[in-house]
């Protein structure tokens, strides 16, 4: 994981993130935090005719997390809800082009979690078990950080 985590594409997205900022009149939003390091991402979606017409994010996070969020907005814009829903862990790591160790994996997948929470709140569906595992296993420490998580969620409301 040590080799070149801060490669050019990641640094580019970190220094000049795409679609960064709160979205006015978003169709839905999702908020996720990593209590381990305080990374905090809110993902906004605008849905039109069953597709993601716009996506943005805001928050404060490390370079890996910020870059992943920025890349994810590019990735899901214009996709149908079904195709956007299919974007998973592998795709995010492919976009980043690195394979982070267990600690930084949490940073890399946090935006995906925020995005999925937003999408599912719009679709009114529950996340599938496999999907939940895939995304949540990376942030499993949250289970033991209940106070912080719920406090964070209250703050976002």
């Amino acid at each position, binding site marked *: 994981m*040590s080799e070149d985590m*801060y490669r050019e594409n990641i640094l580019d997205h970190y220094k000049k993130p795409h679609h960064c900022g709160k979205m006015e009149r978003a169709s839905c939003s999702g908020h996720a935090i990593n209590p381990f*390091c*305080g*990374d905090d991402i809110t993902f906004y979606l605008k849905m039109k005719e069953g597709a993601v017409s716009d996506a943005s994010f805001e928050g*404060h996070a*490390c370079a*890996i997390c910020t870059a992943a969020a920025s890349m994810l907005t590019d990735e899901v814009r214009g996709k149908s809800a079904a195709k956007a829903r299919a974007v998973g862990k592998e795709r995010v790591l492919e976009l980043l082009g690195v394979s982070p160790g267990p600690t930084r994996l949490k940073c890399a997948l946090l935006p995906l979690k925020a995005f999925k929470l937003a999408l599912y709140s719009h679709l009114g569906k529950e996340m599938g078990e496999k999907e939940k595992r895939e995304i949540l296993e990376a942030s499993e420490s949250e289970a033991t950080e*209940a*106070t912080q998580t719920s406090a964070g969620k209250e703050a976002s409301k």
Partner: protein
Amino acid sequence: MAYDIDNIRHDFPILSRKVNGKHLVYLDNAATTQKPVAVLDAMREFYENSNANAHRGGNALAEEATEIYENARKRMAHFVGAAPSEIVFTRNTTEALNLAACMTAQRGARVLLSQLEHHSNIVPWQLAVASCQQSPSKAKATQWQMRGAKIDYASIRSNGKICNQDVQEKLLRQPSVFSFSHASNVLGAVNDAAALCRLARKAGALSVVDGAQTVPHMEVDVHSMGCDFFAFSGHKMLGPTGIGVLYIRKELADALEPVFSGGGAIESVAFSGTTFAGAPHKFEPGTQDVAGAAGLAAAIGYLEKIGMAAIERHVEGLHKACVEGLAEVGGVKIYGNGRKTGIVSFNVGKLHAHDVGQIASDDGVMLRAGHHCCQPLMKKLGVAATVRASFYLYNTKEEAARLSVSVKRAKKVLS
């Protein structure tokens, strides 16, 4: 006597390894320290020559194992100024604090802590005094909430120390226990534990001191400190992981009911009831970590050979060099003053602590980046995370300089 750093470093095999092709610079000593050959040898020697179950059976090997285990207790007692019967071996500081909480605070009791505390000196108290409820929502079934805890938190001063005046005021609410850290694992400043324990005693509260960050760095005398309980870990003072200590003042050790019991902790057992063994054995049920105790005794021997005063001086010098080096980098904010315990917590401009920690790690410099198990303190400091460098007896000024170089590189890469 001159401080022979080359010889000292030679005693720690891990210090000669490389990480990412670069010489290892280990600056995460507040998390755990490296182990000298003497400690590894003592453990190997025990398993190769004397392995048997201490305090079980009268065979020659069992007697040897018992002697090794009890000798470790004596050495530890001497090291921190206690009597052997006041030294209870635990797994680590956290277990020691959990035991102290279970033995001194019942549900509904009022407890005083401080804003400096590590999660391990907050959560055990919440668990002891609050009622614990599982979240009613199925989706959050793994989340538990603790409610109704009557816990006060003494404030801290800008220098990172507990405010004695606030302690005095909060003691007026008559908590049954005051538990606080001798030095914070984030800010490093050393509290005047003797004065704080005196305040607690005057107010009729028991005192519990978390000494995980001080015992490795300075002379500690629990009797002159006047605390009722004192908790620390072996692995932060060159010893192995898996063994720690809870000091319990004699009168209390004799009077308290154990939390756990079983074999080895009793005098006699009948179906109708049990007579416990005397302290400390009544607090140590089951087979104990004899190899760990052997390693810990060797660690104490190593520290005593160098001398705690010499270690303290050496670490203070490294702390100063580190702070000066970081000041030269520019844009580095340092939190608190960990001079005596060798802790430097900092952030670099707006850079995320994780990124700085990662880039340093790529350079072979091991730091800690995160909330250091102190979320409430982080909130108080107004940050999500900090980077922490923590020095120990085998570190050098060259290593402090390597840290500055890495921080400089992080600034360059990320901005």
